[in-house]
């Protein structure tokens, strides 16, 4: 597999209320191979969505990407791109699907006209050709009645259909990387599985990579090749999916797994993680997970934990010695 996208030292700052800065994403390193699915998992407020938006230069103002950050797409630095050059990346090289399909579609335009617009944003073609391409895309995204959906307004479609329409729109530019930012979170479980199935089919048929941003470890299993776990603006563990599920290395990852209900265990064995993700200005100088960690050592409070390599492309940000046979 060849490297598609490499994020090095991505730091995003927001000017805070009282003169300081808050840093919701700090020194994130990630790489995505062509055609693979990388899951970025974390709780709300972990900075995972902001990381996704940064890939498109869409960090909302007054947020700023630190100048020392680097995002390289096929050897092209994209954090410094502006105007037309940035536009050529958005939609064309990297597409994005947001969580809420109803608000992600303009309510006053039909699905078809929004899809046609996405197609012609990057390719010159006649109105009739764009229409045909749009209907083909809707079919590819798994909408049962592509021509009917083409003429429909967003509110006339069901939640699952809207999400599929949104996927079709994101595919219009034939991107090399599709960011699915909680793209199936608003759907019920059966529809969610179908939409994820469709995403996976499209990934295979188009050879595109998928960055699956989610808070739900349950949808990661069997879909993602690799998983990056994010906590309070940092990647705390990165691993191949089978290894992560078999032997999570970071205490936070382990805590996440304990919080997932399992068929084979009784309901009262579910262990929630106490507290919530601290806000960016409440992080302590040491490990950011320490206040909620059941295995914390004294030094975790003041000393920032090292990133410990576990295997090629696998690491954990923790002071605890890596345990081998878990």
């Amino acid at each position, binding site marked *: 597999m060849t490297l598609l996208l490499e994020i090095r030292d991505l730091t995003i700052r927001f000017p805070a209320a009282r003169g300081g800065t808050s840093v919701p994403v700090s020194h994130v390193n990630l790489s995505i191979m062509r055609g693979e699915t990388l899951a970025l998992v974390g709780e709300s407020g972990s900075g995972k969505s902001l990381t996704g938006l940064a890939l498109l230069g869409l960090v909302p103002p007054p947020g700023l990407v630190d100048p020392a950050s680097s995002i390289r797409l096929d050897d092209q630095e994209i954090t410094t791109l502006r105007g037309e050059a940035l536009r050529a990346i958005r*939609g064309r090289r990297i597409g994005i699907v947001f969580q809420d399909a109803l608000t992600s579609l303009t309510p006053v*335009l039909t699905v078809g006209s929004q899809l046609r617009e996405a197609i012609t*944003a990057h390719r010159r073609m006649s109105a009739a050709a764009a229409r045909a391409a749009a209907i083909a895309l809707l079919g590819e995204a798994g909408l049962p009645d592509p021509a009917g959906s083409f003429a429909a307004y967003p509110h006339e479609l069901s939640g699952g259909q809207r999400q599929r329409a949104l996927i079709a729109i*994101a595919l219009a530019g034939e991107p090399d990387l599709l960011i699915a930012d909680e793209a199936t979170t608003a759907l019920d479980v059966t529809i969610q599985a179908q939409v994820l199935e469709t995403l996976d089919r499209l990934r295979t048929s188009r050879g595109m990579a998928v960055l699956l941003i989610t808070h739900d470890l349950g949808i990661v299993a069997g879909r993602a090749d690799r998983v990056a776990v994010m906590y309070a603006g940092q990647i705390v563990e990165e691993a191949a999916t089978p290894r992560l599920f078999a032997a999570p290395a970071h205490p936070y990852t382990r805590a996440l797994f304990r919080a997932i209900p399992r068929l084979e265990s009784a309901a009262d064995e579910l262990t929630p993680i106490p507290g919530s993700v601290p806000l960016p200005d409440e992080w302590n100088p040491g490990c950011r997970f320490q206040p909620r960690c059941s295995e914390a050592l004294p030094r975790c409070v003041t000393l920032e934990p090292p990133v410990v390599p576990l295997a090629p492309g696998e690491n954990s940000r923790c002071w605890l010695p890596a345990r081998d046979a878990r």
Partner: protein
Amino acid sequence: MIGSFGELLRRAWRNPSGRFGMLALAVLALAALLAPPLLKDPAAMPDVVAGATAPSLAHPFGTDQLNRDILARVVNGGRISLAVAGLAVLLSLGVGSLVGLVAGYVGGWLDAVLMRTVDAALAIPRLFVILLLLVVWERIPLGALILVLGTTGWFATSRLVRGEVLRLRHEPFVLAAEGLGMRARRTITRHLLPNAAGPLLVAATLGVGDVILLEAGLSFLGLGIQPPTPSWGGMVLDARPLIVSAPWTAIFPGAAIVVTVLSVNLLGDALQAALDPRSA
């Protein structure tokens, strides 16, 4: 817009008040466009002795104090009043939308400068500004009147549009459009403006009424449309001394103002409802 402008009109047509507004405006506009050549005033020569005569077969709306046919003057006046109101409102909508879109979308210091300017302009009474601008001319050209009415009416519109843009600016669909690599101009015209169109249409309809009334007031002060060119406002105010002895001199031009303002407002309501696809 909704598919096309035609589709929007079709949807507004299904609404009874929209239908009334459209029909009434169509009749007024057709009369203003086509009727003047057919309505040669049979009593065009001023005749102070004959004075105002009551409505009759020869003069269905009666005649005024100079024995001029009121029907002919209402129709001719409509031509002027509607053109002035329509063009002035279009001008102020255009300028107001542009300023509001730029201020809301670009933000930062440009927004601050534009909005403080608008604040200052809003603090000065419009009539006062218009009077100051219009004293330059001895006989005010029609174009200048439209320009002055149009360029003094956009401040509130720009605030309105800016507010809508700020509301919509961070909607996921705007973010999604940007994420798809759409040009800023396209994002603004296709995804921001149509969603802000409802309040804009209401502002426009209210603006038409405002401008018709404002123009009437200016005509009274001798600063609007100059006699003998007829305008509805001017006619109502000319009729002031005759309001008891010859009420028809005020009723017909007054009715023209009321019907126009009413139908524009009804049409505005219907368009607003039609713009919201969920109301179908």
